[in-house]
């Protein structure tokens, strides 16, 4: 890989832009295909560029179907996890989700909770959840989990998440808590969307400690991302 190719690739990744590296396996010649065009030693045809765009959109790395001698490595932005409530479970969930490749943001306007001491190296915001979600605009690569256990924080976040294309929406709370939550959100005109909320949140692993609950939540996020909602 030529120096200019590595540096361009690193710059696209650092800027959060998707790009594809195309390599001719016979001799290692390469082209970098980015939204602003292709550069490098190879000049993919229009048909090949269309196939590369399809692989990139799906986040798939594979040889081209039309020419198995060309390997396409898709580099796409990491999935995101937005956690509402900088509570004890969130401390474990943020760390574990980062290990699993998620870009994590923890949202809590209570600064004593959302402190850098409690969340070393994690992106924190003390915005109100509805403001934070409006700014962060959950997309189809985003999961939203509410853990605050306080309707003032959780409900606005859930309302915003349900109206977004987020691939996963989960809410901590018992069945009774969730039943009351459903009533409140239905009163806000969200009745048709409430089935999207995973609650009680997480896979039923039987654990009760904050770390064990974090494992069950992350496991469910991963399951829904790869297998779809059950």
């Amino acid at each position, binding site marked *: *890989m*030529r*120096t200019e190719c*590595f540096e361009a*690739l*690193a710059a696209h*990744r650092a800027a959060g832009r998707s790009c594809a590296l195309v*390599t001719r*396996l016979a*001799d*290692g010649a390469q082209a970098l295909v980015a939204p602003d065009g292709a550069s490098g030693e190879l000049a993919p045809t229009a048909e090949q560029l269309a196939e590369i765009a399809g692989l990139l959109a799906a986040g798939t*790395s*594979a*040889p081209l179907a039309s020419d198995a001698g060309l*390997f396409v*490595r*898709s*580099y796409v932005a*990491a999935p995101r996890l937005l956690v509402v409530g900088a509570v004890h479970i969130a401390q474990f969930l943020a*760390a574990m989700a*980062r*290990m699993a*490749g*998620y*870009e994590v943001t923890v949202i809590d306007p209570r600064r004593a909770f959302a402190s850098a001491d409690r969340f070393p*190296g994690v992106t924190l915001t003390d915005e109100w959840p509805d403001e934070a979600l409006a700014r962060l605009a959950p997309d189809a690569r985003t999961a939203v989990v509410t853990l605050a256990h306080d309707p003032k924080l959780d409900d606005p976040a859930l309302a915003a998440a349900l109206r977004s294309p987020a691939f996963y929406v989960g809410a901590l709370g018992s069945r009774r808590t969730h039943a009351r939550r459903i009533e409140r959100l239905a009163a806000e005109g969200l009745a048709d969307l409430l089935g999207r909320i995973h609650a009680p949140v997480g896979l039923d692993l039987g654990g009760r400690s904050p770390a064990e609950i974090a494992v069950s939540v992350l496991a469910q996020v991963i399951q829904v991302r790869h297998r779809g909602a059950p």
Partner: protein
Amino acid sequence: MATELDEIFDRIAAWRREGTGVALATVVRTWGSSPRPAGSHLAVAETGAFVGSVSGGCIEGAVIGEAQAAIADGRPRLLEFGVSDEQAWAVGLACGGRVQVLVERVG
């Protein structure tokens, strides 16, 4: 703590800043039950230090050796690993899959 891919790119950049030669290995094709999907990276420094993975650990030793050779001569290599043959102590995949790995020098 960064994601796996961030860590790989950061380490390559750091090695290059130090003037250390680097090679990147990439899984380009898999058959059967292989441990890491196409696109998985293993970055190797000329010192033999490495980050990432292209298998469950079974072929990394051989890939690191080829990566150091690629750093030395600059030629990319396309390697293929199949089922391990315990009699011959050959490098292979215990899971019974087959993988093709591209190894290229960076820079």
